[in-house]
């Protein structure tokens, strides 16, 4: 079977992306406020986004194994490369965790002794909102996901060598997949609360975890579509047809609608009940970030809904590329909107107490600037470099997958 060669041009491209990212980070650091809030929030936005994409790809991969899903068998190696990125993404999250322990960033209000000492609500939450839990969730939960990811990847590669018609290896993969679903389902919620929801330390929403997961899921499918189209353009995957793209397009469409459903459920219920403690979250975002707030819905729901509703747009590479790029940016903006308002609020509060001069100078970051996009491009470079490297290390097609023949003869309609 074909194996992928990571071309020099591609290395260069991803390398340049990464350099752009590093330069953007350096500039951010140098021009930042005394707490370096912009620098650290940029890392958090991207690290959680790409770790999340890797995690949800693993979750989807496990779900597909258990659901007897066959049509994706040809390109499952790409999904494997995505979820192996957990190893890199989690390093960033651990660094952020170390930051909460050692105090080299102040992203989280609950991690600032001065603010907590005068805030009874956060004190009540301190059994959960503390650096130890942050580290525990990031390291133990993260490591457990990465462990399962490695097992599944190793078995998948092993199947290439020893697979037979009894599908023994695949049956062992099923065991790990079955472990992954409840493991990921329960632990991801805690990780999401700590990483993201706790930025707005007072605020809470039970739906937040599933909402964030669905956002990652859309981004994951969009990256998958872009990667397959690119590899196909390079001459790989000759047997991936319009029918496969049709199904991938359906995923992109359906998960976008699902994301919108969760977005609406959360927003509508909070708006309707009109309880100050809950509405403050949206109040801040609507007041200071109206553009991103509406762009989020427009890009992530209205655009994919109307473009992909038709049959043929799901089968054309042009429209798929168009929608995929937009929703990746859209869901990244969604993460920006989740992270930045809380961080700005905390930063301003700390600065006004400790450094009034800097507080007077401090201004809200209401739109992602060049530096934000620069860091985002850097992370795309890192992710792409990693994915292509791991693709080049194994055959592109899992030749002994039980569903391979189904996937090679896949027909929709």
């Amino acid at each position, binding site marked *: 079977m074909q194996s992928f060669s990571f071309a020099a041009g591609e290395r260069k491209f991803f390398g340049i992306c990464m350099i752009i990212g590093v330069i953007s980070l350096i500039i951010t650091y140098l021009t930042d406020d005394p707490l370096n809030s912009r620098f650290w929030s940029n890392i958090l936005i991207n690290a959680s986004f790409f770790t999340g994409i890797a995690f949800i790809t693993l979750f989807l991969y496990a779900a597909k194994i*258990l659901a*007897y899903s*066959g*049509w994706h068998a040809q390109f499952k190696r790409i999904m494997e490369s995505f979820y192996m990125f957990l190893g890199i993404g989690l390093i960033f999250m651990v660094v952020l965790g170390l930051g909460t322990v050692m105090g080299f960033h102040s992203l989280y209000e609950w991690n600032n002794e001065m603010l907590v000492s005068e805030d009874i*609500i956060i004190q*009540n*939450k301190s059994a*959960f909102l503390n650096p130890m839990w942050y580290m525990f969730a990031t390291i133990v939960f993260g490591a457990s996901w990465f462990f399962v990811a490695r097992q599944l990847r190793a078995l998948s590669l092993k199947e290439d060598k020893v*697979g*037979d*018609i009894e*599908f023994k290896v*695949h049956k062992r993969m099923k065991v790990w997949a*079955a472990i992954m*679903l*409840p493991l990921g*389902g*329960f632990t991801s*919620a805690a990780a999401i*609360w700590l990483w993201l929801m706790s930025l707005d330390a007072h605020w*809470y*929403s*039970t*739906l*937040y*975890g*599933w909402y964030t997961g669905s956002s990652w899921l859309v981004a994951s499918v969009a990256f998958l579509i872009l990667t397959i189209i690119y590899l196909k353009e390079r001459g790989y995957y000759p047997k991936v047809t319009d029918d496969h793209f049709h199904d991938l397009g*359906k995923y992109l469409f359906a998960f976008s*609608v699902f994301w919108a*459903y*969760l977005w609406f*459920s*959360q927003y*509508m*219920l*909070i708006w*309707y*009940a009109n*309880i100050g*403690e809950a509405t403050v979250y949206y109040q801040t975002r609507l007041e200071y970030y109206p553009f991103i707030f509406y762009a989020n819905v427009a890009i992530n729901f209205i655009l994919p809904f109307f473009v992909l509703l038709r049959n043929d747009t799901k089968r054309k590479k042009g429209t798929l590329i168009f929608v995929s790029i937009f929703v990746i940016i859209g869901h990244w903006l969604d993460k920006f909107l989740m992270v930045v308002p809380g961080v700005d609020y905390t930063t301003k509060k700390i600065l006004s107490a400790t450094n009034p001069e800097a507080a007077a100078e401090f201004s809200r970051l209401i739109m992602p600037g060049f530096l934000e996009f620069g860091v985002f491009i850097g992370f795309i470079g890192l992710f792409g470099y990693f994915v292509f490297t791991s693709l080049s290390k194994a055959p592109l097609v899992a*030749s*002994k997958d*039980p*569903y*391979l*023949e*189904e996937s*090679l*003869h*896949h*027909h929709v309609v």
Partner: protein
Amino acid sequence: MGSIISPIREPLVTGNKTYNQITEDICAPTERAPSISWVIAFSVANVLAAVFLFTSAWTIWQGVGTWDLNRTIGWGWDITNFVWWIGIGHAGTLISAILLLFRQKWRTGVNRAAEAMTIFAVAVAGQFPLIHMGRAWFAFFVFPYPNTRGPLWVNFNSPLLWDVFAISTYATVSVLFWYVGLIPDLATVRDRARGFRKKIYGIFSFGWTGSAKHWQRWESLSLILAGLATPLVLSVHTIVSFDFATSVIPGWHTTIFPPYFVAGAIFSGFAMVQTLMIITRYVLKLQDYITIAHIESMNKVILLTGTMVGVAYLTEVFVAWYSGYIYEQFAFYNRAFGPYWFAYFAMMTCNLVSPQIFWFKKMRRNLYVTFIMSIFVNIGMWYERFVIIATTLARDYLPSSWSLYSPTWVEIGIFIGSIGVFFTLFLIFVRVAPVVAIAEIKHILKSSGDQYLEKQKEYVQKQQFSEKN
């Protein structure tokens, strides 16, 4: 659909069936005199349905005061039953619509009966808000239209009104879906019948001839209806959850309610499908069409949705603590340790703990275990609604208005009776229409019939695992 099937898949039609045998096997129950077990079951169901009629009539005649509702507990068993039945009515459309879009072939064995079950469950569910109105003859007031009652309009801001729209839309699309699916099969029955029977089935099969054009239109209509029904599966229970979640009652106002209610609905719907299918396949001798593989697939859905509901339960409890909001914290403390602790306990054991038995393949494939589990889940999901409704309302913000609620004989009668109505309808259905979709089973025979899967295995062996690889 791909014509190549992985040998890792189990056959979905067993017993080396031919097309003719499929027609014979599935049409037979509608063509012979009812068996004695059917007659007994039908009589019992009828008696219970009579109980329903009597207790509902009693309620309407005497007033809702015959129930134990009081100043704080405005909703009791009636709305519990309503949500329970609506939830049960979710599996049918999920199986027929979402699984059709996902090209899940195992749906063909159970979709027809599940859709029928959906319609009957929704019909039964619809009775409860009607009875609860007290003056049921004014039920048409819920529809918004320019009227002579002064400038009196329905409250468009109320989720209860959204419910009216959501449920009636859902019922309409479900009926259409079910009936459109039935047409080719009714025509099959018609072609085998004689005399008056032929006339009746002729009318109901809309002159179906089985021409290529008919099939083509039938296929595209099914797909369009599936596309329409899919958001409806989510919307109906989402809006039912809004009935609670839009209010500022601790324990009700929580954002996870919409997806969690949908997961719970699918959970309970599949449990009811299991209850019905295990009996039906045995009584009508349909074991070759509703195989253990079908049962196992449904048990997996039950395990998945049960665990999702479990994640939601634990999320709610955690966030109640995390919120630091004492009323929310009390609401959950009260659920677990208050006067209705047994309901909370039943809900947790039946919905979260007991389905975990389905991690074991042996259990998933055991009919007795499955049957008992399906009853457990039905009980658990009823208690879930009871926990949400009654325990919350019984412990209001104001301790001075705290009270307790226990159902009167009228309320119990309505609930037990509603089960009778449901079974009466279902038992009539199994007599008059093919319980398994004949046309759709024939459609998958060449790809999922046991005799054909053997050939598939040879092909895959040759293509993928021969020496040349």
